[in-house]
């Protein structure tokens, strides 16, 4: 769950991290008073995407009239394909230095990692490795003053800026930990008149912990309507733009199924991991989501482990009985309660493949041949 800049800055401010004086607006007309009180301002479109500045999403103004006009432009615009609902208006900062600072998770080392560089203000992916400081954090002791001091030393900071930057790092780690963040990023952290200030702010909160932050932190959702529906079902679902709708169980096998569809010459309409242990009803709802995206064919690839083949079979029968399916469907069913699942499908006149290559080649062939059989029974599946 990503937060908008203005939300992240609100959290920063509440946790003692200095941010520029600013306010968020949805209506351009409302800016005038703030700008007349604060003078020169930056007007920043609130979108969940990097590279906002280059894309024209940040404008500057010195008078209320100019600010209202430019905010109006931004609020009417699409920046990087995203609609701008809000702008954050901040006092303009006289920047002396720009620093990159972030805390995220190093999956390989299983620990938080702090990243810092004096090459701030630019896309951090452009910064060469040797200019990027990486420091792993031991969660049992957290980030401590000595570590922050060592980082500011490596950055080459001195005097009050070094002290303030070190102090800010400790507070940023506190935010990272307290808000279950996956990422907190300040790019740039600026030094202006000897003091440090978070000129930008990015935060991504662990989706699994989002519930802890309602209503303090409003949930920002980048998902499509179907993705949200799937999420509510506890199903991993990503919309793609191909031909064949896919439901499988397990992220790995789902990815591999998409890969195979591509390998065999078609393309996937979606990624859908129906997960482990989903019951009959959830599986049925997941199938409904798939059908709503109007794929040319459906491939159901179930390898039962925690998922039981009989549940999937029952679910599919239920959906088949309750809604009209007018595209080809190929089912592959193997694993836990496989026999029960196959027999439920048989009782309902549906056969299933046991081998994945046969299932995939069949569904691709059906799409290519525009075959319109609703459910394909494959006698040769038994050979597997």
């Amino acid at each position, binding site marked *: 769950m990503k937060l908008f800049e203005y939300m992240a800055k609100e959290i920063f401010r509440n946790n003692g991290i200095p941010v520029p004086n600013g306010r968020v607006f949805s209506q351009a007309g409302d800016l005038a008073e703030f700008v007349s009180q604060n003078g020169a301002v930056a007007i920043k479109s609130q979108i969940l995407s990097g590279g906002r500045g280059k894309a024209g999403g940040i404008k500057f103004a010195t008078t209320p009239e100019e600010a209202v006009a430019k905010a109006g432009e931004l609020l009417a615009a699409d920046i990087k394909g995203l609609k701008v609902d809000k702008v954050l208006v901040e006092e303009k900062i006289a920047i002396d230095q720009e620093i990159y600072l972030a805390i995220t998770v190093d999956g*390989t080392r299983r620990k938080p990692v702090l990243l810092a560089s004096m090459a701030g203000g630019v896309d951090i992916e452009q910064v060469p490795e040797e200019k990027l400081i990486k420091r792993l954090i031991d969660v*049992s002791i957290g980030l401590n003053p000595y570590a922050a001091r060592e980082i500011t030393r490596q950055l080459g900071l001195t005097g009050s800026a070094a002290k303030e930057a070190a102090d800010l790092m400790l507070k940023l780690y506190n935010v990272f930990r307290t808000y279950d963040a996956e990422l907190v990023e300040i790019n740039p952290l600026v030094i202006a008149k000897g003091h440090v200030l978070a000129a930008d702010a990015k935060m991504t909160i662990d989706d699994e912990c989002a519930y802890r932050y309602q209503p303090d932190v409003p949930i920002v959702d980048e998902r499509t309507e179907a993705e949200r529906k799937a999420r509510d079902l506890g199903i*991993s679902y990503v919309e793609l733009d191909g031909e064949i709708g896919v439901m499988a169980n397990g992220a790995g096998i789902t*990815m591999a199924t998409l890969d195979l569809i591509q390998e065999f010459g078609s393309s996937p309409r979606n990624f859908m991991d129906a997960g482990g242990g989903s019951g009959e009803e959830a599986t049925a709802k997941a199938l409904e989501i798939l059908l709503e995206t109007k794929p040319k064919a459906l491939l159901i690839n179930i*390898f039962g482990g925690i998922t039981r083949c009989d549940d999937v079979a029952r679910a599919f029968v239920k959906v088949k009985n309750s809604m009209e399916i007018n595209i080809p469907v190929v089912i592959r069913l193997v694993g836990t309660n496989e026999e029960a699942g196959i027999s439920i499908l048989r009782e309902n006149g549906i056969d299933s493949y046991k081998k994945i290559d046969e299932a995939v080649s069949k569904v691709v062939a059906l799409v290519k041949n525009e075959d319109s059989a609703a459910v394909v029974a494959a006698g040769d599946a038994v050979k597997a």
Partner: protein
Amino acid sequence: MAIILDDKIKIIVQGITGNQGQFHTGQMLAYGSTIVGGVSPGKAGQEVQGVPVYETVEEAMQVQTADASVIFVPAKLVKDASLEAMEAGIKTLVIITEHVPLHDAMEIMDYAEKKQVGIIGPNTYGIISPGKSKIGIMPNSIFRPGPVGVVARSGTLSYEIVFQLSSAGIGQSTVLGLGGDRIVGYSFIDILEKFESDPGTQAVVMVGEIGGNAEEEAAQYIRERMSKAVVAFLAGKSAPPGKRMGHAGAIIERGKGTFESKVAALSAAGVQVASLPWEVGEMVKRAL
């Protein structure tokens, strides 16, 4: 022979009275696993599939010492259950639960490091040493004993590969799922090391996916330290960047963790990388 799990390992099931706990306790018992107790707060004194239920792991351990524990509790309670098992002296912990909070997972791993506990998961199907014992949720029918070690990030894809191997007459020494989350316990390297020194393993199949750099690090280890043949299969070739493909770890971010970089690293380490799942069996056969 096998790694980590053999038929002498005594197992506790945490969350045994839940749906999944009950079902898979039955499946594990059916496979021959030695389950000495279950834990479920407020349910002590009950039995599940003939297994006695205790209030805490510590209580269970007072009745009969266990070596391993498998966790089926809800995601929010996994941290507590994991610390509990480790403090009580469990040395192998299998965390089946998915959606474990990221920071909880980091704290679990930190404590595991301190207590020298081996962790499989979270978000794993567990571990099985075919013909000996299993701890987890994999279907019993597809495995058969043999000389090939299998280690995977993802679950069901492991089954697919094992199914291919077994169908081709190739049995497995141990099959283990590292877990699909960004933060998991054992890494490819940890398990490759164990397979390398296991006399019962003659070749290894590694099932990876896009995201992170675990496969690349494994490739370096294989190149420098491994004598046994390794065959790899990787998922996610068709995945677009920036999309999280189900697993928290399966995402190409900032141009890193791509399918191509993993294939390149593994190939350079002498690993045969299968393009299609059913090629794995053939490659392993040639390597044996």
